[in-house]
């Protein structure tokens, strides 16, 4: 079920990409294209695929995909697409369907999305330079793509959860459709609000420039004059020739000035945006690096769910004084040595547990454990023989740890 949903929404994202490309190819040559024919083509292809799959009990061969490609091509041709474009659509969509069939875990969402955004922009440019009124529509495929992605992602995640954990279907559907719709609504609202924001920004910019003493600058005057003259410019038909010529010359001069003034403002805005993003990312990268470093360390601890190493922090280590007792000091030194090599004992770990964790035989070092615990917790003293025995075993333990490191 989950794999099915993933395959469907990924296929739709792919379909949006190819539809956008085909749309711009048609727009660039001035050919009118009906978007609905592209959508119908995709939906019908997907339906034929599912019907074919059901008929064959999911045992599809490459032959069946070739057949699917041919059907798609014929249908696209019938819908009035150019044969070249029909071939591209048929091949691409059939390839994507075959890919999701043979490799259901294929996840190329990010690549497809980035390609769509960049390709959309670069296909949009020639169309807009040619002042094609249909150029804008092509970019809406990107909107559709992201909307499908968001809905698809939410639904796959919901389906990942076991059945008895599901909330009501209505609630689920409200999120699947509600979140993308909400985003689209916010976008539309902001888009509608943008002219007011720009106007406000322009007024603020002028006011600040005036306040800081740049009010008399040519820039400020240009904006004012441009606005004033646009308002007072008479209709061209009512003027005589000499005035018309004069006006053309004047307008040409003013246009040059206006463009340069606009350009300056846009350059300032752009520079501000780019530098803000640059500063933010520089700062952000540092944070992320720092976070990932600590996260990696935490991850290692989380595997065994222990607290920090006893000697993991060098500053802590320096603060910690070695005990006075010889026996305890020797053990302390060993622990510090081990901790520096990431073999240290945890705070809540006994010596037995520590050795057991390092896969060492605790019976072999029974004397070390016993003597250390006697001194550490029993506050007793050892005889000279016992001390010698303790030191020998401790050295042996250290050597074993060294061997472990190599």
């Amino acid at each position, binding site marked *: 079920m989950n794999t099915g949903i993933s395959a469907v929404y990924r296929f739709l994202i792919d379909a949006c990409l190819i539809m956008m490309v085909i749309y711009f190819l048609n727009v660039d040559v001035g050919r009118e294209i009906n978007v609905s024919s592209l959508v119908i083509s995709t939906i019908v292809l997907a339906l034929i695929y599912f019907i074919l799959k059901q008929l064959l009990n999911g045992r599809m061969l490459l032959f069946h995909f070739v057949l699917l490609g041919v059907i798609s091509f014929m249908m696209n041709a019938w819908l009035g697409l150019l044969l070249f474009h029909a071939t591209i659509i048929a091949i691409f969509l059939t390839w994507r369907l075959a890919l999701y069939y043979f490799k259901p875990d294929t996840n190329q969402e990010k690549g497809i999305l980035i390609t769509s955004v960049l390709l959309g922009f670069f296909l949009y440019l020639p169309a807009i330079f040619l002042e094609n009124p249909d150029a804008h529509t092509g970019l809406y495929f990107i909107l559709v793509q992201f909307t499908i992605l968001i809905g698809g992602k939410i639904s796959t995640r919901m389906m990942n959860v076991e059945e008895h954990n599901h909330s009501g279907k209505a609630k689920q559907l409200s999120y699947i459709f509600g979140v993308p719709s909400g985003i689209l609504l916010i976008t539309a609202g902001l888009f509608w609000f943008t002219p007011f924001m720009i106007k406000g920004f322009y007024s603020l910019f002028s006011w600040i420039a005036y306040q800081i003493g740049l009010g008399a600058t040519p820039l400020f005057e240009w904006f004012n004059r441009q606005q004033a003259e646009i308002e007072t410019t008479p209709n061209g038909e009512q003027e005589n020739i000499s005035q018309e010529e004069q006006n053309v010359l004047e307008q040409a001069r003013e246009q040059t000035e206006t463009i340069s003034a606009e350009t300056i403002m846009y350059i300032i805005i752009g520079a501000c945006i780019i530098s803000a993003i640059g500063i933010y990312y520089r700062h952000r990268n540092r944070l992320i690096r720092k976070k990932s470093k600590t996260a990696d360390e935490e991850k290692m601890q*989380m595997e065994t769910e222990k607290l920090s190493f006893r000697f993991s922090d060098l500053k802590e280590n320096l603060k910690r004084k070695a005990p006075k007792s010889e026996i305890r000091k020797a053990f302390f030194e060993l622990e510090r040595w081990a901790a520096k090599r990431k073999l240290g004992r945890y705070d809540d770990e006994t010596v037995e547990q520590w050795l057991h964790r390092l896969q060492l035989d605790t019976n072999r070092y029974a004397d070390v454990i*016993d003597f250390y615990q006697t001194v550490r917790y029993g506050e007793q003293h050892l005889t000279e023989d016992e001390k010698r025995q303790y030191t020998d075993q401790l050295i042996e333990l250290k050597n074993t740890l060294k061997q472990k490191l190599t």
Partner: protein
Amino acid sequence: MKQFHKDIKNDRFYYGLAIIASFFIFFSFFGIFGIYSSLMLIGIFLYVIYFINHLYEKNIDRKLALINLRQSIRLYSGETGQLEFHLRQNGWLPMFGARLVMTFDSNIQMGNQSKYESMNISTVEKRLNLFGRESRKISIPFTATKRGIARVRSLRIEIPSLFGYGKITLTLKELVKAEILVYPEIKKVHLNHRSKHQKMGEYQTNFSIFEDPITSYGTRDYAPGDPLNRIHWKSTAKKQVFQTKVVERVNQRSWLILLNVRTKDSPAFTDRIENLISTVAYLSRYATMKGIPYELLINVPKRGNVSFYHVSNGYGRDHYAHSLEVLARVNTQGLTASFNSCLAYGKSIGRSHPYVFHLGEVEQSFLASYQEMENTGTSVYVMHERFQTTWFESLKSHQEVAK
């Protein structure tokens, strides 16, 4: 204070899109790209996605609460139980397909969901959806596999970013207040010792050489040899024949169970520890069924006046449950105490127990203390094990076998 520690990881896909969106918005100011063109719309759209994702990551845990109730579950090995948590989202931000990852001691097994095991820790994960203003009960069934105490060592919730390509990890800062006590298995032992009523006590019995003069329940005719202080004078006056008080026969039946968890000449836990604990569990059950009071000493250190595990003298179901709990709490990865100090304490209280059972290794140094106990009229029994059969022998027989 926030209940969770948050760690955000994302692969900066939406940052990249936000940069592209910035360029789109910037270009859309130029007339040549079309004023208020769809470039602006796409740029705003990508920015909205980025900011909503960012706000989601920032605020998802703001009103999220895990209701951490104290739970104590007691069960025998092989039995099943259920851990329950309540997760409540007081805010509006939903979680889709979040993973609840929990690590716990591996003496319980949480279904077949166990992801990996390392040392004594196992991990289990569960997926869940939690919508805005919603509360969810999460039940995790488990099976007790081994004696001991199982605790949830850590709990974290991994939430995928709202639009994908990232993950928010919320680690619970506090301890999960759930404790699962797995009682030891009960291993049958042959108890072939005959009860000898050697000590005066307070437990009524049909056959005993001891009598409690206070607990008289009737009278009988005087017989030669009856002491004068047993004569019931009021009844004698009524019946005009000498009457002797009939009193309850009593003896002392209580047990003292001593468990030595150490191996010979070493502080480490013996390999047979589980077996020994199972035997102690059987003795406790047997004593409870027969109404025999018992006291238990284990040479595992703890804080308190008695510096090792000690179950004071008592009987009945509650006492049995308490004993099983103490046995369940013996951690074989922990420390052991010297058995000599345990024995010294046992010797001091041994006078009130006619029967002493020793389980575990017997060292020469213990024999003197046991001998002293025997001299006061206490019978000491030592556990023997051979061919998967366990029985008790008296100290004398043990010494003979040892010789």
